[in-house]
């Protein structure tokens, strides 16, 4: 019964989020504020449904499943939605919904296609090793940090687009709907400031667990190395911005590169089944 509820709520959430995506796109193009309210309502309902779906699934499996592409993608979609709502609550700008809600929808659709897929190299022994609280926190931290980095990348992209338009003295109806330059910059900065410590903590916990379970040469794993690249990029972002007072444009390019590395890492995690770290993002 609960398993059925989990499936139904997942599908409902996907339907609600697709409807929200359509409304966000429409209000972005047509400047209809009432539609924006409905878009937000549907996105909120979809997020609650998704939360419920994850909860039902966790109940059935006696704990949240963190392993496998389906589960990590669903969690990533959920994290993106939560980060979006936090940003929207503070920034009062719905433009991000027009980008981040469709991203969440895309992640959920891909997750549905990969619902039966399991990491090929995952052995029973590895599953036992993964059944640890540190791994759980590590995954949650990394998923939320990735969502934060992705939001920072999207905000930085907005920053560059809007900055470019303002530099070229061009205006247009779509430009009116974009967040302001300062707001885009603030979202990007805050997202990185919040995500970076989470990512660092996630990496430390993962490293501790790898050492505990005596995984030889874990640091040479391509995904661990890529995560190191992500960390280095966003670390550079923070250092240059707050330490050296680098320009917003330079900082934005670094954030976009970092977000690109997050996406690349996610894809590589599934397309390159090598190394020990084949079960996660």
């Amino acid at each position: 019964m609960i398993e059925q509820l989990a499936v139904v709520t997942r599908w409902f959430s996907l339907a609600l989020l697709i409807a929200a995506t359509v409304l966000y796109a429409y209000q972005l193009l047509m400047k209809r504020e009432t539609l924006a309210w409905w878009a937000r309502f549907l996105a909120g309902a979809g997020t609650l449904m998704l939360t419920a779906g994850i909860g039902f699934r966790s109940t059935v499996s006696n704990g949240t499943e963190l392993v496998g592409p389906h589960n990590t993608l669903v969690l990533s979609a959920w994290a993106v939605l939560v980060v979006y709502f936090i940003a929207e609550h503070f920034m009062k700008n719905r433009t991000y919904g027009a980008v981040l809600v469709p991203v969440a929808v895309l992640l959920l659709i891909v997750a549905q296609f990969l619902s039966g897929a399991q990491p090929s190299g995952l052995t029973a022994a590895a599953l036992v090793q993964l059944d640890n609280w540190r791994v759980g926190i590590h995954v949650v931290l990394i998923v939320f940090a990735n969502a934060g980095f992705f939001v920072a990348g999207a905000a930085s992209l907005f920053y560059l687009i809007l900055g470019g338009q303002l530099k070229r003295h061009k205006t247009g109806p779509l430009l009116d709907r974009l967040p302001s330059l300062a707001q885009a910059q603030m979202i990007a900065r805050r997202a990185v400031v919040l995500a970076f410590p989470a990512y660092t903590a996630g990496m430390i916990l993962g490293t501790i667990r790898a050492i505990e379970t005596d995984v030889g040469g874990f640091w040479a794993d391509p995904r661990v190395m890529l995560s190191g690249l992500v960390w280095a990029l966003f670390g550079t972002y923070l250092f240059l911005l707050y330490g050296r007072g680098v320009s917003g444009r330079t900082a934005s390019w670094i954030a976009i590169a970092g977000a690109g590395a997050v996406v690349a890492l996610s894809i590589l995690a599934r397309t390159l089944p090598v190394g020990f770290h084949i079960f996660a993002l």
Partner: protein
Amino acid sequence: MHLTLVGLSHKTAPIEIREKLTFPANRQEDALALLTSTDDVVEAIILSTCNRTEIYAVTAADTDGPGAIIDFIADYHDLDRHELVRYLYIVEGDAVVKHLFRVVASLDSMVVGEAQILGQVKEAYEQGFEYQSTGRVFNKLFRQSFEVGKRVRTETAIGESAVSISYAAVELAKRVFETLEGRTVLVLGAGKMSELTAKHLCSNGVCKVLVANRTFARAEELAAKFEGTAIPYEKLYEYLGKADILISSTAATEYVVTKEAVAKAMRGRRGDPLFLIDIAVPRDIEPGVNEIDDAYLYDIDDLSGVVEANLDERMREAERAEAIISEEMAAFEAWLESMEVVPTIAAIRSKSEQIRQEELERALKRLGGLSEKELQTIEKLTQSIVNKMLHGPTNRLKGVAGERYGIGYIEAARYLYGLDSNPDGKNPHGGILRHLLRKKEKAADTKTEMGDTVV
């Protein structure tokens, strides 16, 4: 006498040319004196704003009025006449009236419906009046144009969707900063345009206003209006690093804010944007500033792009304004025709003759049985009385007609003899009186006013 207009505007000339052809307020006296020093130009007014430089003139009928004005502009600014002509437009006759009314009604402005042009035309007229370069035609034409501006503003919604250069600047600032609350604006130059823009920014939440001006007292005066702080002009760059928005509108002829200085000020801002609004002509801020990361520079031409979205609505209202202009044009042309001395004297004589005839007829009816000789005597008596009564006024009217204030006498004569219907019952000299009173107020103001000139 012939109405002539030679000018250039944002529609015909880029800012690089317009900034070369400005006539700042402090140089208008010389320019007007020079312009009207020849017999070709009888009356003249120079309208010099950020977006246009126009010379309105009443030229002698048998001269090449446009040629004389073009020569004057070329000589005054030391420019090549043939190069200059490419950017100029020439308007003559009734079309000048229409053009002026359209300018005052803000139909020819970069931002249709903006209210500043009316004040700028008034200032230009007051300068002309003060320096005695206006006469009977322009006194009437420009005063009527102000009425046109007022009518268009009150009878249409052309100014309701708030779009102006300063509003455009505020809108752009919001695109950069989302909200202006808590932002710091640095006003460079204490002119009216920068004051207006700063006022808009403050009404949108800007909390801190810094004012820099070459004349510190003027900076203090403007800063006081916004509860802001006047800063020494020499410390401009020091404060630039602390500002979010810079509004520049000085009368300087060279760049006041350079690329190098802005680049230096941007260091250590941690990517915080700096929005620079250059509403001065000639420009105050080096255009290369826009190439600096996080610095967004808009000059007067760039601001026009922002307001295009609201233009459609204003254009619809502009059609109604055109109808008002047509009405007013017809009224002015009728006045112009009537204000010739000969028609005025003819009208006075005609009216007097009509009265004489009517009174004579009435008297003869009462007298009855008069001989032919008696009739002729009475006829000649009445004619003689009328002629003698009109002789003095007629001669004096002819005498003052060519003088600068002749229009006042002609208007007074038409009013006293009741030649024109005057449904409003207004004293035709009320305008002159009001103008003179305003002039006194202005003279008192200028004694205390120091600082940069607004264009």
